[in-house]
């Protein structure tokens, strides 16, 4: 991994090899992927509080009936759209859910709160938009090889280190030859964008090599997945071989109108997500036991349905933590009974499990970080061990 300032001085001294490897193979076996559901997914209709009468009062038309939900424990059920993808992971104790999860941000603004989560900085101070928590994390993990599986580098990966991004829906090979790449890199020598240019070329080549090699090996597969499943498959290939810290986002969760109940828009989207995550677990193979996937969203939605068979911006959400060695098959973290008294501002789930504390706690256990290291990733946070790993 390159720090921007080091790379700049290195560049001025030496010529850069265009397709040279900029990474050693990941030294840490541990892999971590953050999946960000942008748009505030409606957690209450996916991990369903089936034991709560209040839930059914609040959602007369869109609630998931207890008889239709897949039983998780006595109080919660899982949306049946996840029957073949996430439910098997639950049964293997490889996934847990953390309800009443979120941040202190009560703006209920998608963009504000997404920024809050991605920056991972304490609220109330001024924000440094050049420093996202995953960039800081990449700086603390030794032997980290980070990548954003997105069209643009997300806020969480902005920072001192130059983290590459790659859009996964490409087909075909990179079209610039080695000579062109070298000439272009020379133009950027000593300039601000030099590291981005160099990484762009090298990552593009490496990613293409990995994926085409894998595809060749698996060329008898009949069905080519699309959408998030395609992304998940490629993420697995890349995290097996080259990268050990990743980020991907999925949009389309902002269901204000006609979100569906048992069937409909939201169930279809979550089914696609589930299939992708299941495929990811499958394709990671032996590495799944060293992998953790954390699924977050900026906030949850109103507990009551609105007049349009949808829900509006809320507060507390439910995060997913999955992986081969996760202490799964349970709902983790602080929980309260689901009733009107416990609602936040009489409209939303409360937040009892702060995302910085939760992830901080995971980092402490998985990577053996000490307090100082966690503080570098999440300044002024209090890491909590929710016994997820």
């Amino acid at each position: 991994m390159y720090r921007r300032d080091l790379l700049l001085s290195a560049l001025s001294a030496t010529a850069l090899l265009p397709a040279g490897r900029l990474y050693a193979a990941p030294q840490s076996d541990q892999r971590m992927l953050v999946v960000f559901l942008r748009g505030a997914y409606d957690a209450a209709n996916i991990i369903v509080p089936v034991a709560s009468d209040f839930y059914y009062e609040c959602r007369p038309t869109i609630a998931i009936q207890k008889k239709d939900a897949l039983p998780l424990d006595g109080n919660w059920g899982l949306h049946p759209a996840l029957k073949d993808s996430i439910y098997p992971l639950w049964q293997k104790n490889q996934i847990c859910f953390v309800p009443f999860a979120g941040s202190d941000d009560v703006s209920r603004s998608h963009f504000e709160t997404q920024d809050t989560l991605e920056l991972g900085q304490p609220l109330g101070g001024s924000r440094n938009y050049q420093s996202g928590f995953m960039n800081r994390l990449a700086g603390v993990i030794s032997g980290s090889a980070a990548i954003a599986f997105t069209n643009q580098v997300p806020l969480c990966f902005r920072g001192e280190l130059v983290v590459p991004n790659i859009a996964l829906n490409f087909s075909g090979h990179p079209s610039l030859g080695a000579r062109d790449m070298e000439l272009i890199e020379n133009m950027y020598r000593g300039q601000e964008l030099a590291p981005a240019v160099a990484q762009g070329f090298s990552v593009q080549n490496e990613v293409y090599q990995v994926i085409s090699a894998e595809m060749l090996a698996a060329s008898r597969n009949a069905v080519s997945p699309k959408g998030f499943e395609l992304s998940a498959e490629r993420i697995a290939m890349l995290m097996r071989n080259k990268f050990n810290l990743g980020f991907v986002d999925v949009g389309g969760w902002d269901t204000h109108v006609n979100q569906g109940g048992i069937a409909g828009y939201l169930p279809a989207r979550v089914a696609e997500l589930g299939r992708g995550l299941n495929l990811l677990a499958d394709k990671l193979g032996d590495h799944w036991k060293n992998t953790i996937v954390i699924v977050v969203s900026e906030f949850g939605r109103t507990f009551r349905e609105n007049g349009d068979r949808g829900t509006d911006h809320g507060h507390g959400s439910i995060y997913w933590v999955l992986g081969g060695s996760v202490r799964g098959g349970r709902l983790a973290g602080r929980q309260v009974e689901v009733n009107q008294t416990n609602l936040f501002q009489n409209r939303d789930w409360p937040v009892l499990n702060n995302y910085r504390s939760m992830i901080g706690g995971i980092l402490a256990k998985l990577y053996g970080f000490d307090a100082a290291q966690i503080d570098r990733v999440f300044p002024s946070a209090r890491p909590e061990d929710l016994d997820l790993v």
Partner: protein
Amino acid sequence: MEPNSGEIPHLTVQNVSTGSGENHPLQQTSRKGVPIALLACALALQACTAGPPAPAGPVPTPAFHPTHETNAPLPDLTSLEVLNRLSWGATTGDAQEIAAKGLKSWISSQLHPGRDDGLPIEARTQIAAMEISQKSILEIALEVRNLQQQVQRLRGTPAEDQARKTYQQKLNSLAHEAAVRALLRDLYSKNQLKEQLTWFWFNHFNVYQAKGELRAFVGDFEETAIRPHVLGRFAELLAATALHPAMLQYLDNAQNAKEHINENYAREIMELHTLGVGSGYTQQDVQELARILTGLTVNQSANRLLRASEGRLSLPIALTVFNPSRHDFGDKLFLGARIQGRGTQEMAQALAMLAAAPQTAHFVSRELAQYFCCENPSKDLIDDMARSWLRTGGDIAEVLQTLFNSQEFAASLGERFKDPVHYALSAMRASYGDTVILNAQPLMNWLNRMGEPLYGHETPDGYPLTQASWSGPGEMAVRFEIAKLVGQGRSGLFKLSSDPGQEPVFYPDIKNTRYAQAVMPSMSPTTKAALSKAQSRAEWNLLFLSSPEFMKR
């Protein structure tokens, strides 16, 4: 916050219960243009080329790019930088116009453009032939709704699939036309600032084409709600977007009714369109504004549209309607002001308050400064612009004049990183000048690959305006690939998609354009060194379009 003490603009919307339409300021007329064969356009294009026409056969003779350039003088480097900033990318032709008029006068003509956009005939012809140019939004809505009803009628039958495909194709075709029209204007209009502002304001009042039936409406939204107002008064722009079916559907106000309030549009008007998040409005204000906006909806009934479209040539908009039975007529307390419940006039009052608010002046001025000047405009600059705003009642041209007159603007020239739309359009303009493309699809594909397709941002905040959003490693790599495609001249831009033959090859000859020759001496030693190593015209083009200098404006 005091309510606007001036006159409340009269907001007239067709009242759905009476069915009678009051004259709406944005009237749509039904036009039937005569479609002109695109083949004639292609022939005209051939006749213009300097090189020999491409012969039929497997190996076409490369035709060199006709730059349509004259020996008229160019202005100084600073003027060229201003041109780069105020346009979608400098061309020799526009540069010469600055030299002829003088920079100040040219800037003034950009801030106060005439009605004629100066589009070449080939571009005007393509636009005139479009369905969106020939039909009103009413007629389009009618057609689209009929196709949708057809799908319902055929539900469960074997014909349902085809009916659904026909419906989707219609929507896609309408959105495609809208994008092509916008891109042709961006590439060839003389009123470049106006075209940039059309993009900017669309982005500010973003709608996403893939939602609902918005593909049928984005063209009209851009054409009637945005473009006429881009250099006018912000209050009128805001009102025009608030009345358009595209906005009402996208932000769910079409569903907002007193029995079931939907806050989405109310929140985003304040957070994104006017005051800005964290500027002092409360959740209570959001709810009150949502109450004010109840009943402003989109006419879903095809029958009503039919009745409205028959008869008179001059039609009021009947797509946006006010349904009093869905409106909350109670009094509201909005931003500290008591709003008497009385119907659409509440909306006019609220919108006027928002448009006149100092927070809006600051928030929107900042966005303009970010787009046209620098990523972190100084407080002083924003204050100056806000003062102009408040002094002139939100006159966008005046606010921009203040910006363009500032030291900060002058100091920022040549330093603003281009977002993908600027990058693609400037590469096209530098390479092809005013030679009109026949097929915009390759250009649309490039915008897609770079992550900034027209009408394609899902969320209301619009595409980001910061350098960090567009300059990641993956994105730089994609730009260089596109530079190669633009520079090698064989990407399908000059061939009708329906034409099975070979495309005539235009090698862009950037090196020999007078504009490039004027700016090359000021490029960095490393860029010049790379350019000097180019072994072919295509490679020279690739390097020029990939250079650090070309990434900025």
